[in-house]
């Protein structure tokens, strides 16, 4: 079915624009046309379908599901909901405080916040269309694990000691005297199909309106890499034999603050050109999940010690992901 986009790009680039097949420039442009059209069409269709399904999910419900759970279940739920809940990073602070003041452990809340930027429907759709389902599955599992381990380690180190005092107070109050709240899963009225349709159309407009520039930018960068970096260059210079390439990729990704949308097309090109899968993932996650604007926001509710701790945990996590994936990828993607 996706072959239609290859065919479309053939028509536009070779026939309409008259480029000679096989030149670097034509390769790059073909890649750009095929991927932008494919991704944008898939995004519109899939975001609509997903939004139909989750129209009735909101943060109050999520909090209700996570609250009063066993801690271990909490980590999985926190990370899992982080993956599926639509959520803008500008809401991190109210969400953090909403969870904390409901007595949800810091690690569970952070499992949500760690996983949320790594996994979202846009990232999954793009990975699936560019790199196939095995890679997408591996990415999702790793994203959830990064969130869970981050949360568990924070709780083991008793990170809640270093919350800002008003947040710590709210957490303790909730832990000692849990006030029962109305069950948000019962109060809301049932959504009709036309309500869901309306919500889904708004979601498509909102999300695609926000990310289309990033798709184009990401694919343009990917296309440039695709056409102009020689085959196997990365494999020779930054192959998995060099253990230091993983920490180097994590550090390189740090100052680049971007979202998954722009990074994924670049990832695809890097992998195709022979950069090891683990190194590429470490780079991608460091770019997407550890961003300075986010940290500056979190400063409002956390002391520097806790922020520093979170930062270090994330970096170590990404390096471990990189090394493990470099180690197992020969078995995972024997064909690619």
């Amino acid at each position, binding site marked *: 079915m996706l072959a239609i986009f290859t065919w479309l790009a053939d028509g536009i680039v070779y026939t309409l624009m008259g480029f000679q097949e096989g030149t670097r420039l034509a390769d790059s442009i073909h890649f750009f046309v095929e991927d932008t059209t494919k991704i944008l069409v898939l995004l519109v269709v899939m975001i609509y379908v997903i939004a139909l399904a989750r129209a009735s999910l*909101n943060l109050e419900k999520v909090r209700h599901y996570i609250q009063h759970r066993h801690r271990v279940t909490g980590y999985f739920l926190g990370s899992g909901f982080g993956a599926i809940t639509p959520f803008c990073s*500008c809401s991190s602070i*109210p969400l953090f*405080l909403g969870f904390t003041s409901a007595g949800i452990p810091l690690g569970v809340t952070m499992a949500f916040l760690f996983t949320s930027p790594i996994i979202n429907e846009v990232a999954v759709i793009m990975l699936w269309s560019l790199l196939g389902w095995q890679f997408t599955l591996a990415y999702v599992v790793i994203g959830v694990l990064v969130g869970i381990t981050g949360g568990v380690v924070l709780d083991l180190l008793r990170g809640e000691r270093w919350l800002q005092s*008003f*947040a710590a107070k*709210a957490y303790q109050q909730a832990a000692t005297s849990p006030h029962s709240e109305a069950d948000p899963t019962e109060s809301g009225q049932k959504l009709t199909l036309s309500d869901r349709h309306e919500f889904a159309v708004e979601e498509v407009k909102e999300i695609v309106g926000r990310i289309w520039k990033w798709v184009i930018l990401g694919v343009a960068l990917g296309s440039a890499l695709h056409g102009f970096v020689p085959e196997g260059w990365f494999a020779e210079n930054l192959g998995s034999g060099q253990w230091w390439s993983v920490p180097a990729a994590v550090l390189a990704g740090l100052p680049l603050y971007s979202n998954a949308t722009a990074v994924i097309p670049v990832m695809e090109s890097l992998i195709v050109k022979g950069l090891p899968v683990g190194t590429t993932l470490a780079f991608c996650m460091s770019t997407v999940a550890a961003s300075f604007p986010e940290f500056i926001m979190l400063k409002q509710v956390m002391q520097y010690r806790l922020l520093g701790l979170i930062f270090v945990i994330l970096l170590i996590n990404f390096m471990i992901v990189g090394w493990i994936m470099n180690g197992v990828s020969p078995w995972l993607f024997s064909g690619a």
Partner: protein
Amino acid sequence: MRIEVLGTGCRKCDNTATAIREVARELGIEAEVEKVTDPSLIMQYQVMSTPAVAVDGKVQHSGSVPTKEAITSMLGG
């Protein structure tokens, strides 16, 4: 009437405040629009998705930039 736009300072919060001022002016309603960015105050309102709008201390809307119709009904127009 006192209107507070709750949010930690993203662009949507600015858009919300602007939209409310505009509708209030169109309706000829005297409304004092104020942006609340202090996280501890937002927590007291128990709001988890921003931007949110509180009218005279009561939360009326949260999670998005409200539509013109929603603002009109919040202002009682």
